[in-house]
C-alpha cells in the first residue's frame, strides 16, 4: 500500500491548441494539507477539474491511493474516496440545508438508488447529516431552502456537502473566496476541524489562509508545478519569487 494519497504524473491538458496544464507532477502524502497557489490563469481550477474527473486528461496519469483514476467519471472517482468543492457555489438550491447534506451522505452509506427505503427511517443517514449540520454551524438553518442562505452560509454548506460522504481526500476550490476577514477566519477553523485525519488539497488566493492551514504549498505557474515545499521554504524559494515578480503579481501579504 502506497503512503501517497494522491499523485499526479506528468499531467497534461490541452483545449484545442492551447495547452493549459503542461506536465504537472505532484505527490501528496496521506493526511497532508497542501495548498496550491499561483497567479491568475495558471490553471489551478483546471487542475482540480482534471483530478476530480470533470475534464479528461490529455496525457499523464492521476493516482488515488496508488490506483489510476484516469478516464473515470466524477461519480466513480467520488466513490473511490475523493470529494471536491467548487469555486462557484454548487448546491441544491430548492432543497433544504438538511436535505442537501442527506443527499450527500446517501451513497457512502450504501443506499444507492434505493426506492424501497423510507428516508426518515434511515437512522444512520439522518444522524450523519445532523452531525455535519452541527459541524458546519448551520443547525439553526436546518429547514431553510439552501438557495435562501447568505453567501457565507452557502460556502459552509458547500464544504459540508463535500465532506459529508466521508471521502478521505478532499479538494477545496477557493473555499474562502469573497468572504470578509472574520468570515474567512471562521471558514479556516471549519476546514481545520472537518479535515482532521484527511488529505486536503486546496486552491486559495488568501495567503493568510494558506499559511494558516497548509503543511505544504505547491506553486503552479503556466500549467507546471514549479515547487512544492513547506511554507517557510516556499517563501525563500528563488524560482517562486521570480515567477511571481516576473508576472507582476507579487505574493500578496505574505503574512
Amino acid at each position, binding site marked *: 500500500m502506497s503512503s501517497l494519497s494522491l499523485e499526479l504524473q506528468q499531467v497534461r491538458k490541452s483545449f484545442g491548441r492551447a495547452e493549459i496544464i503542461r506536465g504537472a507532477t505532484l505527490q501528496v502524502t496521506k493526511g497532508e494539507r497542501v495548498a496550491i497557489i499561483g497567479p491568475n490563469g495558471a490553471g489551478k481550477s483546471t487542475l482540480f477539474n482534471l483530478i476530480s474527473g470533470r475534464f479528461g486528461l490529455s496525457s499523464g496519469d492521476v493516482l488515488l491511493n496508488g490506483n489510476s483514476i484516469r478516464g473515470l467519471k466524477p461519480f466513480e472517482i467520488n466513490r473511490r474516496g475523493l470529494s471536491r468543492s467548487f469555486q462557484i457555489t454548487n448546491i441544491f438550491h430548492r*432543497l433544504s440545508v438538511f436535505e442537501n447534506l442527506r443527499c450527500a451522505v*446517501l451513497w457512502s452509506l450504501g443506499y444507492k438508488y434505493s426506492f424501497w*427505503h423510507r*428516508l426518515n427511517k434511515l437512522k444512520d443517514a439522518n444522524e450523519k447529516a445532523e452531525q455535519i449540520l452541527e459541524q458546519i454551524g448551520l443547525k439553526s438553518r436546518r429547514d431553510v431552502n439552501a438557495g435562501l442562505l447568505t453567501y457565507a452560509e452557502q460556502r459552509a454548506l458547500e464544504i459540508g456537502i463535500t465532506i459529508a460522504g466521508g471521502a478521505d481526500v478532499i479538494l477545496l476550490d477557493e473555499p474562502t473566496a469573497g468572504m470578509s476577514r472574520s468570515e474567512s477566519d471562521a471558514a479556516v477553523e471549519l476546514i481545520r476541524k472537518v479535515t482532521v485525519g484527511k488529505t486536503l488539497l486546496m486552491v486559495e488566493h488568501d495567503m493568510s489562509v494558506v499559511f494558516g492551514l497548509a503543511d505544504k504549498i505547491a506553486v503552479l505557474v503556466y500549467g507546471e508545478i514549479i515547487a512544492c515545499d513547506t511554507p517557510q521554504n516556499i517563501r525563500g524559494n528563488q524560482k517562486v519569487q521570480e515567477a511571481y515578480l516576473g508576472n507582476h503579481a507579487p505574493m500578496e501579504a505574505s503574512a
Partner: protein
Amino acid sequence: MAFKSSAWSRLVLWAAFALLLIVAPLMFTKGAALSLLCQMGTVMIFGLSYNMLLGQSGMLSFGHAVYSGLGAFIAIHAMNLTAAGTLHVPVTLIPLVGGFAGMFFGILFGYVTTKKSGTTFAMITLGLVELVAACSLMFPGFFGGEGGISTDRVIGNAFLGITYGPQVQVYYLIAFWLFVSTVGMYVFTQTPLGRIANAVRDNPERVEFVGYDTQWVRYMTLILSAFFAGISGGLSAINFEIVTAENVGAIRSGLVLLYTFIGGIGYFIGPMIGAVIGVFLTVILSDFTKAWQFYLGVFFIFIVMYVPGGVASILMMQLRLLKFGKFARVWKRLGMLCVFSLIALTGVVAMVEMMYHRALDSDNGPVMKLLFWDVDTQATMPWGIAIVLLIIGAAGARMVKPGFQRVWGDVSIEIEDAMRRADA
C-alpha cells in the same frame, strides 16, 4: 413532538382522500358525472406519473403517452386473450398488466431517452412519440389501425358479484388503483432515489460529485414513472373498452403536460388538481362551446406567465393565510379583485363566443344563444355590452390591485416573521 403530529396529520389526509373516493359516486349519481369521475381518476394517475419526471426530476417529456398508451394496448390485448380463453387475468388485475407493460417500454425506450437531459431529452422524447405513432399505422395487427382495438370488459366469472358491467364498479376499480398508485408515488418522493431525483433536478453536476450517476437516476425514475403511466393506461382501456392510436400520440402527451403544469408541478397534489381542471375543460366545456380549446390554451398561457406554481400554489397560499389567521385581512380585497376579473372575463368570453359563432356557425343565422339570451352577433349592441363589461372589469381590477398587493405584501412579511420566530 412536531414530527409525530405531522405524521398524524398525513394519516388523516390519506384517510380523507380514501373517504372522498368512496363517497364521490354517492354525491354525483348521474351517469355522465360518474364517467367523468372515472376519467379524472385515470388522468390523475397519468399526471402524477408525469410529474415524477417534470416536477420531481426536472425532465420535460413530450412523449409520456407512449408509456400509458402502450400499457393500454397490452392491457386490452390481455383482456381479449382472457375472453378468448388463452390467458387468465381477472379484470381487477388488468391495470397491473398495463403497469408492467409501461415499465417494460420504460426500460426499453428510457435507456435511450435518459442518456441526455434538458432540451436534448425533451427533443428525443418528441421523436420517440412520433416514432411510436408511426408504428401504430404500420402494425395494424397490434394497434388495430384507424379503428383501434376494442374489447368487452365483462369477461370471466363474476367475483363476489363484480362483473365490471355497471360503470360504478369500474369507478371503484379506478378509485382503488388511484389510491394505491397515489400512495406509491408519494412514498417514492420519500425514498433515497426520490430525493436524489430532486437533487438532479436542482443541480445535476453536483450530484455526480456526491457519488451518483445522474443518467441512472433519470433512467430508474423514468422506469418507475412509466409503470404508473401504464397502470393509468390499463384503467382507461377498461373504462372506455377501446384503445386507439390516439392513446400513444403526441396530443395525449401534450395534454398531460398542460394539465400537470396547470395543476402545479411544484406540489405533489398539483397533477391531481390539474387532472380535475383538465378533464373539466376538455370534457364538460367541449359540450358547451366550440371554443374550448381556445380557452384551454389561453388558460395554460395565463398560468405559465402569471402563476408558474400552478393552481396548487394559489390554494397553498390561501391555506397558509388561513393557518396564520390572516385571511380576514385579505379576503375583501381579494374578493373585489375576483369580482372585477370575473366581469372582464365575461366580456371576453362573450366576444369569443360571438366571434366563433360568426366564423363557424353563421349558416344557421346571426342569432345565437348566450346563457339565457338570444344574441344577434351582427348587431352593435351585444358587442358594445361585451366591450363595456371588459372595460369595467379591467379598470376595476386595476384600481383594486395596488391595495390588494399592499395588504398581501404586509401579510406575507408578517407570516415570514412569525415563522422565523417559531424556528428560533
